[in-house]
């Protein structure tokens, strides 16, 4: 078994072109998901019957079912539904051409990230002692302010390693967007491999790219974690 080194070399640079798609999808999903997820986490802590129940159902459905299947529902059904609506309303708008599949990908991955992040945030919030909230309230801060200034900074220390898990998983997981014709790092590798069945080479290339990408991200997260945890790493 010999590796086709020329192919690997060429493909490697082709694959690099997919990084922007991969990163855009990852970052957009995280940014869109974070505030909603945080709100959901707070709702669940509040344990208010209806909203907290709704959040639980959402989380269990979205994180409990394979993304592939969600994509199937969203990508193959949603445009059809939209189209029917647009048609019956008689609006002159071509749903199929006007909406870039990238948009559907962002929606799918954001929905998933919301579910995962809401659990990350919930766990981080659980770790904060209630005295912190009370102290903030007692000096006249609003609940929102206490969260911003006191609770979130402390919770982030607990959350960051888990957000890092989610981020690297997203980087790899966004390759499912290829189901919607969105070409990320892995998709480009697969396309390149398909002509001559150079799958081994392509996968090695993709692996390298992921190593570079994920290492940078992990280093950033680790640095951030050690920076924001200075306040507690006193006794070692």
């Amino acid at each position: 078994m010999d590796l086709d080194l020329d192919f690997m070399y060429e493909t490697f640079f082709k694959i690099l072109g997919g990084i922007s798609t991969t990163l855009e999808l990852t970052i957009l999903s995280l940014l869109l998901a974070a505030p909603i997820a945080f709100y959901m986490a707070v709702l669940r802590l509040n344990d208010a019957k209806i909203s907290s129940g709704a959040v639980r159902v959402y989380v269990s459905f979205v994180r409990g079912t394979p993304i592939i299947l969600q994509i199937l529902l969203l990508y193959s059904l949603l445009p059809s539904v939209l189209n029917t609506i647009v048609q019956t309303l008689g609006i002159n708008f071509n749903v199929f051409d006007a909406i870039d599949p990238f948009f559907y990908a962002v929606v799918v991955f954001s929905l998933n990230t919301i579910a995962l992040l809401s659990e990350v945030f919930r766990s981080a919030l659980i770790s904060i002692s209630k005295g912190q909230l009370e102290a903030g309230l007692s000096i006249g801060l609003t609940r929102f302010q206490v969260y911003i200034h006191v609770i979130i900074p402390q919770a982030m220390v607990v959350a960051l390693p888990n957000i890092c898990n989610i981020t690297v998983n997203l980087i790899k997981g966004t390759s499912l967007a290829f189901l919607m014709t969105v070409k990320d790092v892995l998709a480009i590798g697969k396309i390149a491999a398909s002509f001559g069945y150079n799958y081994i080479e392509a996968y090695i290339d993709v692996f390298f790219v992921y190593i570079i990408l994920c290492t940078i991200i992990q280093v950033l997260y680790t640095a951030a974690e050690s920076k924001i945890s200075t306040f507690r790493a006193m006794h070692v």
Partner: protein
Amino acid sequence: GKSETKETAAGTDGAKKVITVAHTNYYVPYDYVNDKGESDGFEVAVMKEVAKKLPQYEFKFVPTSDDDLLIGVESGKYTVGTKGIWKTPAREKKYIFPKNYIGASVIGLVIRKDTADKIKDMESFAAYSGKLVPIAPQNAQYAVVEEYNKSHPDKQIKLVPSEAFKVSDAYTWVMEGRYDAYFEVELNYKNNVLNKNGSYHQFADNVSYIRYKGIPTYPLFNKKEQKFADEYDKAIEELRAEGKIAELENKYFGESLSNYIGDSDK
């Protein structure tokens, strides 16, 4: 390197050399796993006949995914792999293709009835819009369309790669106008639309089919298995001469596919 020593060791023991045949597991009716969990399908059945002709080997059938099949045959984990593969020059660098094809598939375009007067063949489809349902790049159809595009630089079809999608969407997408054509194996079209029990039979009036061509399919052999590939070729020639293959084609397809294959492709 190491697998080789292992095999020779087995050979000197006097035990039969094991031929591992990997086949894809849901390419009905070519290769699949049937209700009883056994390897089944036309190509598998042919390989089983080949096995009877080559009693010096012990055959083992392994259903697996496309990815694993390709990597496994390349690395030597599997001796042969079959999944309705079409021959391309690039692939011949990685694997041994035998001289004799094993089966064939006929492909063409599924289009909406209302476009049938404008779309008559690939060229007119390209002229009409060229909006084709995306194809997975590892699917041989992708290569076929690509080849078409190469030979018709002025009448290109919009070939979009994507991960495999299930047929039911593709038909719907064509009917609702999301795409204008779907590249499909004729047999599937027949079963889904023309067959009275097919799940898309109700839409038989909405779509029609344009045959493009029949293409021979081959099993793949590991680069070190030239000897076995030759023995396979001999076996296939005998089986074809005996009419065994035609019999199996009838069993699995209800007709002989070989007729569709143009002489240039044989």
